[in-house]
């Protein structure tokens, strides 16, 4: 049981490490959000308290490194994954298509919140980049879900 958490936490640190150093860009450009995808998969297989702990850690890192107002990433992650948690109350958590719907909804809400934040901050030109990020992340999530489903069904 503990091994499961330990392995997941190590993977989480590794994913964050890749996100931070591999996604290092000074130019504004679309970046694949693998940390968000990891949090979505954690939502399906781990308890809420542990997920909240991971959200907290991710938010600290993203709030520190991005120049947005402190807490923006924390609130956006809470809203999007909170909506995901609500959706899992109505949809079957372990079913492939439900996971697909919940995951894609979380990604959509996350980028919608970012989109609105940038409208409020009056920097609408980066909405195009946000849209590109949304597409890249949701396509990658789809691909991973199919892959994961293939592995599990074998």
């Amino acid at each position: 049981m503990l091994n499961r958490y330990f392995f997941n936490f190590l993977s989480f640190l590794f994913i964050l490490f890749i996100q931070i150093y591999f996604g290092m860009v000074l130019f504004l450009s679309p970046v694949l959000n693998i940390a968000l995808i990891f949090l979505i998969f954690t939502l399906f297989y781990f308890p809420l308290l542990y997920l909240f702990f991971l959200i907290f850690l991710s938010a600290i890192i993203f709030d520190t490194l991005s120049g947005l107002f402190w807490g923006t990433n924390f609130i956006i992650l809470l809203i999007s994954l909170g909506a995901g948690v609500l959706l899992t109350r109505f949809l079957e958590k372990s079913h492939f298509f439900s996971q697909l719907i919940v995951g894609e909804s979380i990604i959509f809400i996350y980028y919608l919140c970012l989109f609105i934040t940038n409208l409020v901050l009056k920097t609408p030109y980066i909405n195009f980049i946000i849209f590109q990020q949304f597409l890249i992340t949701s396509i990658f999530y789809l691909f991973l879900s199919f892959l994961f489903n293939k592995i599990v069904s074998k």
Partner: protein
Amino acid sequence: MKQKNNFHFIFLLVIFTFTSILLFNLYFSQEKNLKPKLVYGLEKGGLIGNYLFNFKNWADDLLHFNNLRKQLSELKYENINFVNQLQNFNEIKKENSLLKNALEIKEETGWSVELAKIILTDPSGLTGSFWINKGTNTGLKDGMNVILGDKVLVGRLIECFNSYCRGESIFSPETKISVEDLRSSTLAIAEKDIKGNFRLRLVPYESDIQIGDILVTSSENANFFKGLLVAKVKKFSPSSDISSVKEFILEPLLNFSQISSVLIVIDIIPNE
């Protein structure tokens, strides 16, 4: 039984609300403590991170091989032009030094700069923020300009802690730079378009800006001081809505893959 369940629900709701308020308070009050500590932690893990970053650059180069080859041939051509120009400038330089000696003009002293290393950048790709490994301990302050060794403008410092500072590059949202064309001395505003490209906007139609011209910061800037290299005019853009003005697409001179170290101008803070 129902009453007991309701009591349980209200009790849990109170605990949840109380914990949430405490947690939010904790999170929002610890900004100043958490930021430098996290950057310190991530800087220590930066050795492996740098390998990862170099690998990413290598993979990126491999994917854009044709583009690099094209750029190389353009640079070779440009280099020949610069060598020819240098011949002319050498004569002017000799003439200048003779005149300076004759008129007894003292040489202008340069800016005082502090060398720093970029240790982290924004992983979300939306803000153009970066962190450097120097802070208020070495005399850095908010608003100081960040440049490269060849006076290319990188950005400016936004917030400083004891050992680290966060800066914003010229690519960050809402950046508008008042620029001057080195050749024709035309003034214009460089800003981002919807796709994040730099554009030279509101250029009068009769102005003499040509492709390949170099743009530097002008004295009208609130955040940057005069004479820093910003961009090169890449191409004419026909998308202007007003017929009396024209637009150009710019190519920033700042190349992020080559800037591990930057210089911070410490003796002048614009707008202070």
